[in-house]
Structure formats: structure tokens, C-alpha cells
């Protein structure tokens, strides 16, 4: 921790790091002074009560907040030693490397195959049909959906069940080969069995990807993450990072009394 060049050091250790990040929606400060590092090839859960800014923080990691009029980020979000909010950084390039899975499954109203092929195609895919077939299969296998859909790749993505749709969205994100996958409450619209499958999938994906997941479900954070960041809003309704540690530490031996109260269900 005493390296002279902190940027290089954290770029090696962390997949993503925020330093004194503040996020504003016009004049309203939604997130205040958040600094933490997301460990490579680990699952990091962001938890906290509604309105605590955890989704806002997640969406700042691949500049999805740019799409909200008036949204503004101050401070640094470092990815491979570069600040994602530097003036010359292209949000489109960022999103090609940091993928996202949303709360509600949102497959395109296209075939399963075309859902997967969309990302590579817009990213300048040069391969032939056979290679695309392979990529589609690999992505679907990666999201453990291949066996469910291999015989109906030309059917609409919307013909699948909710859990399958969400895995299709994960496969779609995998197809552009990102380094980090952000998941914004990916199981909140799913039944318990589909939820379990997504969690198992996250453990498999961890080998190759870094995962950041926002979850409302504390059991999910406890059983399916390596690190947990607990957010809470302060008196000005600005979200703050209260505690960030190994998941066992947060759930078994929290340092902050507010964390302890939240995980024991006393509020939130």
C-alpha cells in the first residue's frame, strides 16, 4: 500500500476504482464522496435501502448515467488507470468493455440468435457466418442457456421465460467480451429458482469477468458475493458508502453500527 504510483498499483489490483466520486442530478447531489476499489475476478455486491444511490453508482461505472439529462459525475472512476470521465473518453467505448445487465430482462424483439449477434455486429465484427455461429453458441453456453435454446435460435427472445430472458441478456453482454459485467438487481423480476440459476452463473462467470451487482436482497448479497459495499443516504439524501469489506466480514462482524442495523433488518 506504499507504492509511489497509486494509479499503476490500483490498476493492477482493482478492475475499477472510484476516488472521491460525487454524482449529481442537476443540482441534487445523489451520491457523495465515494471511494472504493472493485477487485478483479470477484463479485462485488452493492447493498443499501432504496434511494441510497447504489444503482446510481453502478450506472456511473459504464457511463449509463450520461443518458439521464442533467446527470454529472465529479471525481475519478478509474478503469485500467484511466479516468472514465476524462473529457476525451468515449462513453460508447467504455460500454463496449463494461457491460450491463438490467433489472428487468430486456431482450430485443429479435430472434435469440440476433439478440446475441447484435453486440458483436455493432462492434465491427469481421468474422464469417460460421464464426458468428460459434460466438453465439459460446455466449449462450457461457450464460448456461445453450441447452435450453439450441433448437430454437430463430425464435423471438421474448418467447423465453423470465429467467431465460435474463440469461439471454447475460449471454448478449458476454458476446461483446467485456471485462466487467454490471448487474442492476438482475433477479428482482425473477422467481427463486431462476434467481438461483443466475447466482450459480455468476460464480462461473467470476473466473473470466469481474462482476458488480446491485441487489435489494441481502441474502443474495450474503450468499453470492465476495465483497459487499453498504450504502446509505445522509441527512441531505445523498448516498454515501458506509462500509466496504469482505462479504463475511460485513455480514458477520460489521464495523459500523448502521451496517449492523441494516443487515439485521432493523430498517431498509
Amino acid at each position: 500500500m506504499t507504492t509511489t504510483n497509486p494509479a499503476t498499483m490500483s490498476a493492477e489490483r482493482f478492475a475499477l476504482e472510484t476516488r472521491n466520486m460525487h454524482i449529481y442530478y442537476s443540482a441534487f447531489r445523489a451520491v457523495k464522496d465515494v471511494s472504493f476499489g472493485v477487485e478483479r475476478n470477484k463479485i462485488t455486491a452493492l447493498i443499501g435501502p432504496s434511494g441510497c444511490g447504489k444503482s446510481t453508482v453502478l450506472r456511473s461505472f459504464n457511463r449509463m448515467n450520461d443518458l439521464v439529462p442533467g446527470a454529472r459525475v465529479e471525481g475519478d472512476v478509474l478503469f485500467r488507470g484511466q479516468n472514465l470521465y476524462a473529457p476525451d473518453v468515449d462513453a460508447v467505448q467504455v460500454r463496449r468493455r463494461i457491460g450491463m445487465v438490467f433489472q428487468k430482462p430486456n431482450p430485443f424483439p429479435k430472434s435469440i440468435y440476433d439478440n446475441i449477434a447484435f453486440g458483436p455486429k455493432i462492434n465491427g465484427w469481421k468474422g464469417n457466418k460460421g464464426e458468428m455461429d460459434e460466438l453465439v453458441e459460446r455466449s449462450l453456453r457461457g450464460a448456461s442457456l445453450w441447452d435450453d435454446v439450441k433448437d430454437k435460435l430463430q425464435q423471438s427472445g421474448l418467447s423465453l421465460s423470465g429467467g431465460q430472458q435474463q440469461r439471454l441478456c447475460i449471454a448478449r453482454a458476454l458476446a461483446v467480451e467485456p471485462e466487467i459485467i454490471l448487474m442492476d438487481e438482475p433477479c428482482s423480476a425473477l422467481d427463486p429458482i431462476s434467481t438461483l440459476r443466475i447466482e450459480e452463473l455468476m460464480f462461473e462467470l467470476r473466473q473470466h469477468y469481474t462482476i458488480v451487482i446491485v441487489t435489494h436482497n441481502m441474502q443474495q448479497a450474503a450468499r453470492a458475493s465476495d465483497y459487499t459495499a453498504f450504502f446509505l443516504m445522509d441527512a441531505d439524501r445523498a448516498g454515501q458508502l458506509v462500509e466496504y469489506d469482505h462479504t463475511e466480514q460485513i455480514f458477520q462482524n460489521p464495523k459500523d453500527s448502521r451496517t449492523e442495523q441494516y443487515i439485521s433488518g432493523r430498517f431498509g
Partner: protein
Amino acid sequence: MADQARVGVVERTVPLTDANTRMIDLRKRPRIGESLIQIILFICGFISIFTTLGIVFVLGRESLLFFAHPEVSLVEFVTKTVWQPAIDEFGILPLVNATLMTSLIAMLVAVPLGLGAAIYLSEYASERARSILKPLLEILAGVPTVVYGYFALTFVTPLLRNAFGKDVVQIYNVASAGIVVGILIMPLIATLSEDALSSVPSALRQAAFGLGATKFETAVQVVVPAALSGVIAACIVAMSRAIGETMVVALAAGASPNFTFNPFLPAETMTGHIARISGGDLSYGSIDYDSIFAIGLVLFFITLILNILSRWIVNRFREVYD
């Protein structure tokens, strides 16, 4: 008392009083206002349907009179390329051809412009720009068509004649009328398509952006395909409007029923011809008088077919996104 109630003993535990023995009136009661409104609404619906049927009936009856004239034959009506009532030549093809040409040119102008405007309004424009531009577009749709007619005659035609040469482009020509009809129906395509595009759920846009799609890729590859049925329906409504448009073509396309595929020559559309003939002193029962009903009937069938087609397309290509 409480014990009895718990074991369900059928014994009255509440004393019989007036309040819970009095009969409650649950009988139907008359609601005159309700039935009156139902009748009025039925009449409204009936009148509009009846009017349509009445128009079809009149068109059909008068057309039969037209075809009853010995000079007219149905086969020649739909196959011959000369329309000269003065010498008893009644081939509708020149009129149909002119209508299809002006409509086609109009669509060539209106579809790219209108769809482009719709994509801009729905995907790119700020809330402020949209709040200014959309009403402007609707004003454009409210300009009287006679104004568009003179716009064609005094602005677009000179423009075309300067661009392509005065001996190539006639004063009255199909191209000028078609272009201006295109401008006239553009707001229709733009507003209807914009409605279709903006009702595409933003979750789909987010999905595309999240995969690293640019705004343009998102608009063209995700939003437009998802709204395709609405966009196609908008185009077909606009096409029907172009086919039925009268004033612009009557003023700018000329008054001679030529059978030509050259857009720089004058030609007369079905609607333009009906307007011109019925504006003159036609005597009831004359063959000219009857002919305009036959033309009207053809026009009616063309728009009817387009409407049926649009229904079919909307159902066939609807991409259900939720």
C-alpha cells in the same frame, strides 16, 4: 355468548333490532341518463357508419349508370390508355397512372424526410426542441392544401424548370405536384412514426447503449425495427392521403389526361379530373357526370385496398416487445 359464537352454535347472539332486520332494497332501478347516453353514443356510431355505406351506395349506383351507357365498356374502362370523354374514350389508366405517379413521388419525398424527422424528434431532440418542433410540424399539417397548390405552381415548378431546363419541364407537371404532395404528407408520417418510435420501451434503448451501441445504431437497429409496424402503418395512411389529395394536383399537375411516365409532363390524376369536371357545367345524367362516380369508385377501392393492406401489415409485422 362469545363461546357460542366460537363453536358455531346456531343461535341468535345479536338481538333482533330494526337496524338489521329491515329489508335492504337491492332491486334494479331505472337510470334514465345512462340509457340516454347509450342511445346517443349509438346514434353517433351509426351515423358515421351509415354515411360511409351511403357513399359506397351512391358511388356504386351512379357507376352502374355510367357502365350502362352504350359507349362505355368495363373492359375498355380498365384497359384503355385514353381518357377523352369528348370522343367517348373512357380508359381510366391515364388517370390511375397519374395518381400513382404523384403518390409515388410524394412517398419518395415524404418517407425519408418524415422518418428522419421522427427519428430526430424521438431519439435525438431535447425535451425543449421537441416541444417547439412537434407543434410546428402539426401546423405544417394544417396549412390549407390550396396554399400548397400555389406553392407548387409558383415555387417548385420554377425551381424544377431552372434546374432541368424549360423545354424539359412543362409548366404543369407531375413532378412538382408530387413533390409538394410529399411535403404535405410529410408531417403525417413524421408525427405518426414519432408516436410509434417513442412508445418503444426505453429498456430496449438502454440494452443497446449498454452493449456499446451509438445513438444512431440504437435508433436504426433497435428502435425502428421495434416500431416497424407503426411506421409502416403511418406510411400507408400517408399514401392514402396522397392518393386522395386533390387541390395540389389540380393546380400543379395540369388538366390533360396524358398517359405518360415522364414526370416533367402534365398529367391529370383521378381526383384532379373529378374536381375539374364537376367544377364545370355538367348536366345530370350525362355520360361525363356519370363517369366521375366510376372514377370515384376506383379511387375508393384503391384506398380501401391500402387500408386492408395496412391492417394486415400491422398485424403481421408487429414486434411485440412486452
